[in-house]
């Protein structure tokens, strides 16, 4: 599609599902009714390691309304092989099997499921279940296991391991005139989307299941349930029409899904299991990570060596992996690079992809180190970044499909007023507040996944586009509608999207910021196929005005199909369909990455983030007064939903910089601040002015639509920009995230 043909794509269209959401009509997993529904409440372990000797369930069983209590001694039938439990996203290891054995490997592990006729009865009874356990030693402290860290023997599919060293990083470091090694830490952050994990499993006579699940991938859940319970995939339908935020937490099937289905199959009734906010804290989280970053440069600031070694936590049972250090090998031009990434096993649940997994934390520490280098060199931190601009990916030696990062630097700096910055720290003040300005680069990979879609055009010029994608918040419903409308020249009102259903054309999970590019391109392809069929039918009509036209000359718009160069030579869609005795045309389309192109090119979204903080020096209170985030992400399908993505990412980045931290009592192996009163995410007062800029970036290789994706990039770099601004304000460098008042006062 050329821009001229795009009436809806590229415009700030409001969410097509917005009204349903704000009026409460959009239903979420725990809201679907079912006849004779049973309710499950999960009982969680209160120790971090050990064995269950006995579960005392008598008092709970005696509660009126209690139907069954499942434990490891009576849990329903499920697959025995690890393989059958592995979902699309699973890291290597032994996936968690709830209620599988008496073994406890982390605090909060599900150890029983109480099923009752009402939520209240289930909850009250669950409180009466008592576990008698043999406690074993545990460890939840990453520093304690750091010396035992190991390189994961088996790699997680889809996650590139750190690239091999290049050049002579150690030697270059030793010989460089300017150099340092710094230790950083980014504490674990916990997934807390608004919608908590929930599954409503509707049991139909004959054993068919319809499962309403809080997930980022209906088909991932479908195949997981089918293989864990040995069911025919055709007998398992999974629906996730609306998802109340997920950020990666819903990529993998979570325990409540298994439990709901297990109970449903065992009791032959519909069952709902929803987790509590507290239980959410036991599950998905961004891993706690330690980093050593060593940078060396010449006197002018040209990088001579980059070394980045990281240790991340994982569970006892899986080797969760993410691209944590790889960024340090590709963001800047440097001939001597060494990266390493190790894991340490703790008594916690397996970490989970969380918005820009690996980049949000890995890029943060590199970008703080770059700021430290600029300070050592006494040069402007933005200039240092420009000076080391990478015009190709040093890790792979491949070209970028596009990289308008220089425009991000330029436009972001101009909007922020960066040129007015005084270089030395503590130079800017307003009353009792010190003012600091910081900058960071952000980057995230732009993916194109294999995805399919279907387009159905009816003779009344209504178009339905469908794909088993999910909309976890970014606006997938809306952009698919826009793409469909433009592809067949229809008004938005004539187009409806269908997503969030495993019976629809195959789609990957929604994650990695790939949905707009992948599913969007598939929808585009399906619409193109419809157009083609329509054209062929039109040509076959008697005295067709399009008989001698070729497909390239054809456009479909305003309910008709005709020649671009001669609008008089056209037919109405209804006319064409009726002549062919059709009431609808249905075609499928696909999108997938081009393997040939992948040999030569890589794609990344890039950004420049500028932050101003104000620090009350006496009290240590930090305010993020403003942020400018300039992003290059290829074509922007919808500036309104796109901006929202960046805003959300930036706010999460502020949380990473200043607030989010699980407080663990390592003696007990327990997270103590497992609720929203005590686990802090930014509140409104913490978020001031955020300016979002999208710079022009034309990319004809990244995806058929030229789209790169925006779900993650907003968080990447934000925490570093804030931390660097705090240094600029105060002259104090805190290398331990989040930067809380006590750390800042002690620095």
């Amino acid at each position, binding site marked *: 599609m050329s821009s001229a043909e795009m009436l809806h794509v590229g415009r700030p269209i409001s969410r097509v599902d917005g009204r349903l959401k704000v009026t409460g009509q959009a239903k979420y997993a725990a809201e679907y009714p079912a006849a004779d529904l049973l309710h499950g409440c999960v009982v969680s372990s*209160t120790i971090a390691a050990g064995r269950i000797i006995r579960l005392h369930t008598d008092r709970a069983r005696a509660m009126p309304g209690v139907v069954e209590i499942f434990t490891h001694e009576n849990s329903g039938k499920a697959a025995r092989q690890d393989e059958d439990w592995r979902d699309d996203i699973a890291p290597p290891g032994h996936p968690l099997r709830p209620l599988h054995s008496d073994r406890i490997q982390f605090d909060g592990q599900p150890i029983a499921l109480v099923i009752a006729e009402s939520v*209240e009865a289930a*909850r*009250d009874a669950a*409180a009466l279940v008592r576990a008698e356990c043999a406690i074993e030693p545990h460890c939840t402290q990453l520093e304690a296991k750091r010396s035992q860290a190991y390189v994961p023997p088996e790699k997680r599919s889809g996650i590139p391991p750190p690239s091999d060293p290049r050049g002579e990083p150690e030697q270059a470091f030793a010989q460089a005139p300017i150099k340092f090694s710094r230790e950083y830490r980014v504490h674990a952050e916990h997934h807390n989307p608004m919608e908590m994990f929930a599954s409503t499993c509707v049991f139909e006579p004959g054993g068919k299941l319809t499962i309403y699940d809080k997930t980022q991938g209906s088909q991932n859940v479908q195949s997981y349930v089918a293989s864990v319970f040995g069911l025919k995939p055709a007998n398992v339908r999974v629906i996730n029409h609306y998802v109340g935020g997920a950020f990666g937490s819903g990529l993998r099937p979570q325990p409540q899904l298994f439990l709901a289905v297990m109970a449903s199959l065992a009791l032959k009734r519909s069952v709902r299991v929803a987790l509590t906010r507290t239980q959410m804290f036991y599950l998905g989280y961004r891993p706690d990570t330690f980093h050593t970053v060593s940078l060396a440069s010449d006197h002018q600031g040209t990088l001579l060596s980059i070394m980045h070694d990281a240790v991340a936590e994982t569970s006892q049972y899986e080797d969760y992996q993410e691209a944590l250090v790889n960024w340090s090998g590709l963001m800047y031009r440097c001939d001597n690079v060494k990266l390493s990434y190790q894991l340490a096993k703790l008594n916690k649940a397996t970490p989970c992809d969380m918005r820009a997994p690996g980049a949000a934390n890995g890029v943060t520490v590199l970008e703080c180190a770059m700021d430290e280098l600029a300070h050592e060199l006494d040069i402007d931190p933005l200039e240092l970044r420009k000076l080391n601009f990478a015009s190709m990916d040093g890790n792979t030696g491949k070209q970028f499909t596009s990289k308008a990062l220089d425009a991000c630097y330029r436009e972001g700096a101009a909007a922020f007023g960066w040129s007015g910055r005084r270089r030395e720290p503590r130079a800017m003040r307003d009353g009792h507040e010190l003012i600091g300005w910081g900058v960071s680069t952000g980057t995230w990979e732009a993916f194109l996944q294999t995805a399919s879609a279907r387009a159905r055009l009816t003779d009344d010029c209504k178009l339905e586009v469908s794909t088993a994608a999910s909309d976890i918040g970014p606006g997938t419903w809306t952009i698919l509608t826009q793409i469909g409308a433009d592809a067949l020249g229809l008004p938005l009102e004539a187009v409806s999207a269908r997503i969030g259903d495993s019976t629809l054309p195959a789609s990957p999970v929604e994650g990695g910021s790939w949905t707009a590019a992948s599913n969007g391109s598939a929808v585009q392809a399906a619409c193109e196929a419809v157009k083609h069929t329509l054209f062929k039918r039109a040509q076959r009509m008697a005295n067709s005005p399009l008989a001698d036209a070729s497909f390239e000359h054809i456009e479909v718009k305003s309910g008709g199909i005709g020649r671009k160069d001669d609008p008089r030579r056209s037919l109405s869609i209804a006319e064409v369909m009726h002549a062919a005795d059709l009431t609808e045309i249905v075609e499928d389309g696909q999108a997938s990455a081009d393997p040939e192109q992948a040999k030569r090119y890589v794609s990344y979204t890039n950004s420049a983030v500028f932050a101003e903080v104000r620090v009350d020096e006496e*009290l*240590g*209170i930090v*305010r993020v007064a403003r942020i400018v985030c300039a992003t290059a992400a290829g074509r922007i399908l919808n500036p309104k939903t796109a901006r929202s993505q960046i805003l959300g990412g930036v706010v999460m980045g502020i949380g990473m910089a*200043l*607030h989010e931290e699980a*407080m*663990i*009592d390592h*003696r*007990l192996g*327990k997270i*103590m*601040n*497992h*609720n929203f*009163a*005590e686990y*802090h995410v*930014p*509140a*409104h*007062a*913490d978020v001031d002015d955020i300016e979002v800029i999208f710079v022009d970036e034309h990319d004809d290789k990244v995806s058929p639509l030229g789209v790169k994706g925006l779900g993650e990039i907003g968080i990447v770099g934000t925490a570093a920009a804030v931390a660097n601004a705090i240094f600029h304000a105060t002259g104090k460098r805190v290398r331990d995230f989040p930067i*809380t*008042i*006590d750390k800042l006062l002690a620095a």
Partner: protein
Amino acid sequence: MNRFEYVRPDTVAHAVKALADRDARALAGGTNLVDLMKYEVTRPSRVVDINHLPLRQIEPAPDGGLTIGALVTNSELAWDPRITKRYPLLASAILAGASPQLRNAATTGGNLLQRTRCYYFYDPSTACNKREPGSGCSAIGGVNRIHAILGASDGCIAVHPSDMCVALAALEAVVNVEGKDGKRSIPFSAFHRLPGSEPQHDNTMLQGELITSITLPASDFGSNHTYLKVRDRLSYAFALVSVAAALKLEGGEIRTARVALGGVAHKPWRDPDAEQALSNSPGAP
């Protein structure tokens, strides 16, 4: 949550009677009690919903102060013109706490009686002397960066979390309660207590007593005051430390100073040394 009996008396006398039961609890705004019940920290046998009691007035007190009914919400109190004019310190302390939604529900009596935010207190799988006397204190040696700096004991290092109470301590309010043995008035400084060996008792109320109102004495701390709160985010977080300070000035000199600290002890902490140092001193540095 356990099963409980629910009653909704219309008179103070009936409420006092209903509260006589050892495991009965009054329900006001419910912003703390309901959480405590959901977490299985409090398992009342009877919930006495006091919202129908006639305790919603703010009235002049005989000595020129104000009497505030126990059910006046935190929002109503903070925005009442008599408060914003004569007791602005109290208004700013209230507005520094919680969120607008919570303040709309939270009541004057409930605010005084809210329990500590010690993480362990809310997690029944851990030892906590306040929740279960004699079980031990997990916070000592544990996660305790929000805990007491002053007046803690070997048995408990929890703090009282209220902002409003810090201002009430500085303003020397009086708490009026009614129980089966009648009414009494407790000076604010004697209302909350230090944990000592009985951290299960947050205050000096007797079992079954009901707060009916608080009285603010006539005050001339209307002009020179501040409530400063330091917390882990800029709103909607409990105080790491807070200070309520009020000065009475005469001819540019400080005549009387009141200083109370929040978030540092088991009770709002009046600091007599600071008050003394400031009193009768030149105002400006």
